[in-house]
């Protein structure tokens, strides 16, 4: 599979995750979101950027529980709950947000 963004073609796996992490550009996230009828707001970007930073540091995509806790710490307690994250990413914050961020599916996420 592949996704078009920025006039380029990016290879993805059968579930739509980017094959090569280093290919990622913000436009890839926008295109992936558009394909799922989702328009990215600043709130979405806060999560996407957080995920990319987390991966850069620890080399893993965080589990939802870890993401929730970390978002609460970084972006404020009112955002550190699964309701907030599921409103932003209705297909699941782990699955959907990690995909937009160009990361592999979180370990333990089915």
């Amino acid at each position, binding site marked *: 599979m592949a996704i078009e963004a920025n006039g380029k073609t990016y290879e993805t796996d059968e579930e739509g995750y980017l094959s090569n992490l280093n290919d990622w550009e913000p436009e890839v996230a926008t295109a992936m979101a558009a394909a799922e009828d989702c328009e990215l707001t600043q709130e979405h970007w806060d999560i996407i950027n957080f995920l990319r930073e987390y991966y850069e*540091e620890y080399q893993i995509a965080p589990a939802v529980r870890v993401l929730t*806790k970390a978002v609460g*710490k970084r972006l404020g307690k009112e955002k550190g709950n699964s309701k907030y994250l599921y409103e932003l990413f209705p297909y699941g914050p782990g699955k959907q947000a990690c995909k937009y961020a160009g990361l592999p599916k979180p370990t*333990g996420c089915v």
Partner: protein
Amino acid sequence: MAKKFMYINRKAPYGTIYALESLEVVLIGAAFDQDVSLAFIGDGVYQLTKGQNTKGIGQKSFSPVYMALGDYDVNKIYVEKESLEERGLTLDDLQHLVWEDEDEDYAEKDSIRLVSRSELSDVLDDQDVVLSF
């Protein structure tokens, strides 16, 4: 009720797949809200050494993943003193693993507990489930 799970790590990293497989199981298992501890004995203590750079061997380094364990509420990491000494290592040669205590305004606390073989034996005796890698 949460059960006490202990993962025992006995192998050096990269030469075999055990260390990485153990980490994966620990991370997946962490989703089940159990009382998890890790023990590093024998060559397993080499998994925690600082400054691992795998560029030359063309493998992904999983060394940074140990730093994330605190986020997964895995904050009881037992390192056997005798195993370190046999290998000429001290705690200073290992990564400084910490966890943040949410109840104390995210205060950083040490995850590594240096224990003697007999102390570890007591900890082991106290577990409900032991998995060895």
